[in-house]
């Protein structure tokens, strides 16, 4: 066998430490979703939950939109954990697409209604800024937690994996926004939500990808030739 292989294998064996096997992706995704549920429970204490139920009960498209955003968060998180394993297909990135289509489609349906939901009004441009800040602001800690969990694995497609983490976080943040969103669907409001999601996914793609590339594993020092 080549001397360079010998030295590399020797260095890798010397660097070997016992590792704890990662739990299945579904379990890890469930752990993150539990974290999101805990954040939701904390936010619910400040929100007017009764008003939210009232709004949701008034229209089917609102329900479908919330269902879509929850499903997007869950499937994107699951896809991110699958993609963090080196042997998994990149086709996992397609998993959240149907849920995202439901989310976008149902949200878009709201614009086509001829009536405004009770207890709501159409958000003005200034008010939509708060939505943007809420989604981005909440996505940051949720993405950070998810990317930290993903760093325990070793993705061979770091930007794609990080983008999935961004999508999961943005969808979760958009779902939690419903607690504090006394507005009916309007094109400007939806456009702002879409912009916020795109910003989060793009930032995760760029920054998270770099973070995932530098995994927890430190560099392996291979001794130079003839040092044995």
């Amino acid at each position, binding site marked *: *066998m*080549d001397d*360079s*292989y010998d030295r*590399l*294998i*020797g260095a*890798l*064996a*010397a*660097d*070997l*430490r*016992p*590792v*704890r*096997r*990662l739990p299945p992706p579904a379990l890890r995704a469930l752990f993150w979703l539990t974290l999101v549920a805990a954040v939701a429970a904390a936010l619910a204490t400040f929100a007017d939950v009764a008003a939210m139920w009232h709004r949701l009960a008034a229209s089917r498209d609102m329900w479908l939109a919330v269902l879509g955003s929850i499903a997007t968060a869950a499937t994107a998180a699951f896809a991110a954990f699958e993609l*963090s*394993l*080196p*042997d*998994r*297909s*990149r*086709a*996992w*990135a*397609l*998993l959240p697409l149907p849920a995202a289509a439901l989310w976008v489609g149902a949200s878009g349906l709201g614009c086509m209604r001829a009536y405004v939901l009770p207890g709501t009004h159409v958000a003005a441009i200034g008010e939509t800024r708060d939505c943007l800040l809420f989604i981005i602001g909440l996505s940051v800690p949720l993405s950070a937690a998810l990317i930290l969990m993903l760093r*325990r*694995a*070793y993705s*061979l497609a770091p930007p794609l994996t990080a983008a999935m983490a961004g999508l999961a976080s943005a969808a979760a943040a958009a779902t939690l926004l419903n607690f504090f969103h006394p507005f009916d669907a309007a094109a400007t409001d939806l456009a702002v939500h879409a912009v916020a999601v795109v910003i989060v996914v793009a930032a995760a793609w760029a920054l998270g990808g770099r973070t995932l590339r530098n*995994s927890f*594993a430190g560099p*392996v020092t291979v001794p130079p030739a003839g040092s044995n």
Partner: protein
Amino acid sequence: MAQANVISALKHEALRPFLFPCSISFSPVIVPSAVKPRPGHAMKSVEQTRTESDTRRSALMAAAQMGDRTAYETLLRDCVPFIASLARRQGVPSDRTDDVVQEVLLTVHRARATYDPRRSFDAWLRVIVERRAIDILRQMRRRGEREVHAPLAYESHADEAVDLSAGIEHKERAKWIGAALAELPQRQREAVHHLVLEEKSLGDAAVLTGRSKGSLKVNLHRALTALRLKMHRGD
């Protein structure tokens, strides 16, 4: 030929999720005794060997996860020919196979916590090799677009810092200065010779020539003025 392989491999990788949208698949789970080849089947021994080696590697990796260095070293050594052969099959030229093997060994090391011993080790490793081989092929293609292999062009490239006319110019100037110095009066010539050309101190020059320091200074000043004038006139 190699280029064609690069392109086809890249296209295949880029289109994979879209060509096979339903191929969201897990790597095969080992079921050692589930498939029993029929007696007399031609593939029997091959299948059995493959499953056995896979099971053995899987066990070695499980031991490595627990920190067993001997098992780990045995596993990595066992994997090298397997990785090299897979890389060649992916279209990696033989001079870059080593790069793929090293990248894969490093990836296996860093991703070892992600391996689940209930799954096939060979299938896990195969995907890693394919991905790393594609990375190397992409790297080669990018380098091929940016760089040209032309050793003769490098050898025959003219060094712009070297000015062949500089030597001739220098000689001409030295000749001109020599002639101009020869035309100077004796005292001025002595002053230039000792103080400028030989870089002696005023005291030493005064002792050597037997003249005063003041006289030497005046003669040097006059000599330089005369030379400057000559130069301006272009004599």
